[in-house]
């Protein structure tokens, strides 16, 4: 009923689109979230995630099972992310900040325990964090998304990015500090008091 990834991969290699679709079903959430956090909006995320899966499909014959399918998938999708950004930068010469500004946010989700005001504030904070994330370099974005949002281990990130554990450690350190500095700097621009220390925290600002 639930064949392992490896079986689906072998079938997909032979052009079995149903098998590949099952792989897509399993991983579309991960790929789409990665693309969304990388690009910062749904329109671009959709394109990028599609591109990622198409590349996966086309690259399948070269996948020889030296790593898990998901690690390999992260590698291909990371490359798709990088290429997409370069393509855009070349085409439109859009600055990272503009890209960040264009980031559309999520639709706020209201929960029973939360007042609409709180939900709006939380939404605003999340948009703001996303903008800061999207303004980082591509490598910093990738490593943060993989670690903080996709929950990959250092080893998995190293395999996906094709670098050493030491590189992951130092890059993640730099990326976290870079994001922290962005958030702090922008917070002053907003003249608000976003609190860094509260998870999903509400804020008194704006």
């Amino acid at each position, binding site marked *: 009923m639930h064949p392992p990834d490896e079986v689906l991969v072998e079938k997909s290699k032979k052009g079995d689109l149903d098998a590949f679709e099952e792989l897509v079903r399993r991983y579309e959430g991960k790929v789409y979230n990665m693309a969304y956090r990388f690009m910062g909006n749904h329109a671009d995320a959709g394109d990028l995630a599609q591109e990622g899966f198409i590349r996966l499909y086309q690259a399948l014959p070269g996948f020889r099972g030296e790593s898990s399918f998901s690690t390999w998938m992260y590698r291909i999708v990371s490359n798709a992310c990088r290429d997409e950004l370069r393509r855009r930068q070349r085409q439109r010469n859009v600055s990272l900040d503009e890209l960040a500004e264009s980031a559309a946010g999520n639709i706020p989700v209201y929960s029973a325990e939360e007042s609409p005001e709180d939900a709006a504030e939380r939404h605003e904070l999340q948009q703001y964090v996303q903008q800061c994330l999207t303004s980082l370099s591509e490598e910093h974005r990738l490593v943060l998304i993989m670690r903080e949002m996709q929950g990959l281990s250092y080893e998995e990130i190293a395999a996906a990015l094709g*670098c050493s554990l030491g590189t992951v450690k130092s890059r*993640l350190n730099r990326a976290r500090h870079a994001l922290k500095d962005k958030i702090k700097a922008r917070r002053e621009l907003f003249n608000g008091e976003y609190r860094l220390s509260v998870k999903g925290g509400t804020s008194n600002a704006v």
Partner: protein
Amino acid sequence: MQCSDVCELLSPYLDGFLKPGEQKQIEAHLKNCVGCQAQLEELRGTINLLQGLPEVTPPAAFRNELRERLQQIEQERPTGRAKAPKRAFYKWPAFITAAAVLVVALGITGVWGSPARWFDSGEGLIAQLFSGNSSSGTVAVDNGKADRPEKQAGGTEKIVFAGKGEVKEDAPESTDFNMLMEPDGLSREEELRRDAAPPGAGVMSVPNAAPEIAADEEPRQMYMENMKGRMGGGAVAREAHLVLAVTDPEQAMNSIVEKANSYGAEVIASHGALVAGQQEVDTVVLELQIPLAKFGPLWEVLNDSGRVMDSNINDILHSAADTGEEQGSPVAMVVIELKK
């Protein structure tokens, strides 16, 4: 431990990714340093903010849309996936091998790398096989215009090395492929095949010497213009293959080489094929080594250089050890077929 050192380790500290000794040192420092405590809290807060971002769901039509695009790709695939070999884009390995044979026959070895992934390990197949050979020079006929070989009678595939300089003088205008046999009757292909391939060479099987021209295909002549081989660069992290329909393959090649150079790409080899009975080149095969960082933009330029008939990008997963950033920058190998 200085505050700056501690600051460097706060991130792995939060992940529990420190050696026990380091962990203790950090904890001891944090007890007495308000500044580093604040840094730690800010980092922790940043991570919490990221982790607090909600999950998003792909649009409802996502899978259907993808399926349609994949079906289209399958339909456009010329030979069908089932028949396609794992490395579908090496449709011309016999030719590569033949080129290698020719070069060997001319007594030249040494500095080259070789096409594509033979040389991932840094140990060239040719160089290894003939490492005892003292070589005086390189065969690279840098971008020299090939003298067109005369048409050969019969359907045998001919390999002509028609570069400029001494090579041309040594080689007959058309060199019969079959003449390049070793005295023991083994062709070089067979030797190449027989000898153990170097580590990393397993990817590409060395094909049989028989020209892989189908019986019903027009006999062709091929020539090699330039074969430089890989010169440095890091691990091959990506392979790509592109088939373009162009009006003038040679002109297209020159234009592509120029563009590729501007992106820091190197021409590894170029080959041409002539339709029998005609002097005109109907296919040119170009092999490029591109710094991986430049692949994206150049790939687009390449795709714009003609009508795309087939394209294929293949990322190669290396172990973390051999693609570390400490080594040479990774490269992409691109094979472009330009067809009339």
